[in-house]
């Protein structure tokens, strides 16, 4: 199946894929800093004018949500699977 072959091709060239992605991320922040490309006229707060603000928001937000949720789970919310079985 072609789709499986494509996925395996990408997996086999993981290092290149990762590098391309990292370059794309860097480019994204770079372009955000160029007013000619990204027009921030409609930004709502001063923070959003900082280049890469939403990139930081995404990265920190994700780690924060992960850590907070797991901590919440450890406070007795996550329990054994047969908890409700009598």
């Amino acid at each position: 199946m072609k789709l499986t072959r494509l996925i395996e091709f990408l997996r086999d060239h993981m290092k290149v894929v990762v590098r391309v992605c990292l370059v794309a991320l860097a480019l994204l922040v770079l372009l955000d800093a160029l007013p000619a490309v990204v027009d921030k006229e409609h930004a709502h707060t001063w923070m959003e004018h900082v280049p890469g603000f939403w990139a930081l928001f995404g990265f920190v937000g994700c780690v924060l949500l992960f850590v907070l949720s797991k901590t919440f789970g450890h406070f007795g919310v996550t329990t054994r699977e047969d908890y409700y079985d009598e």
Partner: protein
Amino acid sequence: MSDFWLHPALILIVGSLLLPLVPARLKKGYLLLVPLLTFLHTISMAKGVFGEVQFLDWTLVFGRVDKLSAVFGYIMSLMCVIGTLYGMHVKEDAQHAAAWLYVSGSLGAIFAGDFLTLFVFWELMAFSSVFLIWFRRQPESLAAGYRYLLVHVVGGISLLAGIVLHCKATGSWAFTSLDVHHPSFAAYLILIGFILNAAVPPLHAWLPDAYPAGTFNGSVFLSAFTTKTAVYALCRGFAGMELLVVLGVVMSLYGVVYAVIENDMRRLFAYHIVSQVGYMVTGVGLGTELAINGACAHAFAHILYKGLLFMGGGAVLHMTGQTRFTELGGLYKKMPWTFLFTLVGGLSISAFPLLSGFVSKSMIVQAGFDHHVLWAAFLLNLASIGTFYCNGLKAPYLVWFGKSHCKPETWERAAEPPWNMLAAMGFTSFMCVFIGCYTPFLYNMLPYAVDYHPYTSYHVSESLQILLFTALAFFVLVKVGKLHPHAGLNIDLDWFYRMGGRAFLWAAKKPIQLTDSFVGELYRLAGLIPLMFSARTSGRFDNRVIDGAVDGLAETVRGIGSRLRFVQRGQMQENLAFAFAVAAVLIVIFIFAYNTFAQ
């Protein structure tokens, strides 16, 4: 009634009743035909007020077709086509009948112009959808179905009480916007009925409890209709109620937190219904034209991509028998197309540019910024990080990639699902892309004129940064070994009624046990000696008289029993499903007949 007006729900109700009579070779065609007819009829209905019926002293309105109800009617009837196609190979008629009745309940509620009609169809939804859970035929589905029904009955009672009080105070049954700035007690009761169906915390626990317990195709229907019909009702009745902004933002984050720690794929998706409906509830609370447009657009897009996610989860369940991440992994070799379609759903819900969520979710966030409710807008953006993390990254990664936790028999069983399931997923994926790329399709349907452009450089840059850096954080978490699935159950607020139910049972048993031991003691003291005597006497009697009589009786009962076995089919759910169908039709016929003869 002036002219004849055919209610789209009636096509589905009659269609479901005729279903058992259709010969097996025509069944698949019939299963497609009925929802397609419903869909075509729904989208071709003229705007206006139809189906007005005088009933006792009241005027019931079955067909209020305006821009708000039309957009919801469009997507509900389209989803009925997709859901039926997805489960077309299911042989059991009652499952299709229950699903169609459920949809007809939703369509009936959406087009209802008065509170009484709304209530009748609202209840039809609850009582027909529960079968989509029961038909799974697992012990936990039976229990979850009963809990689902009980919770909805409570919500229904609150709604009915609110309706009665409201109509008594205002003298009108018309379902129009309520006074949201000075809400009466009745308005609050109605609100409770609505937000319970919209799964707003703390009234949400029925959803992640019941939806993962449904059948593989039943949950596709469940994911679409109840909550979004409630969003419609909120748009109609409570637009601009500020309380809903707070509740909406809370629920968007609440769903995310539980989804992050969830181990069951379908329950994760269910928690993200809570989260996504949070956006819509926030939109309703903001109440501006852009926000209401956003709530409707997001409901429209959400029904498709959430249906797609549940179809992906359902396909995995159907083909492997598993939905827990601790029992899955590495399945891309076996189910690549299911992976691709589920990924489209995951990226759409995450609001990736060129996909449906991008053009709908952003309207609500934008309305928040425009309304200067900055905290709400920022928190909704935070929730969208969790949305991408769970639906676009965690679930696809743990099911199709990552370390395989499949048992040998799971791996052996796993394969692509039947063609109709893939076709339904393929079509829904196409719709997600189409809506994302061609915005006028959705925007022209919305209640208010749309002056909003999602594809500005700033918005695309903002979204891509948030999403791609969330992905970066995800892969860092994978790299440092933080992303192993853990078997476990997360306690939610259903704990209160589950444990409350047990406490009630315990309290009921305790007095009985006390009485029982008291009687036992009395019996031992006062009854033992006379008993010994009577036992000897009755022993002799028993040997000669009773044995003969009992043997004869038992023989007779066995004979009757074996005859009855052929009559009784033993499928309680099936019988009940058709009983409800008949009841729904009788009510409709009764109202129409009453109207005809009364004039």
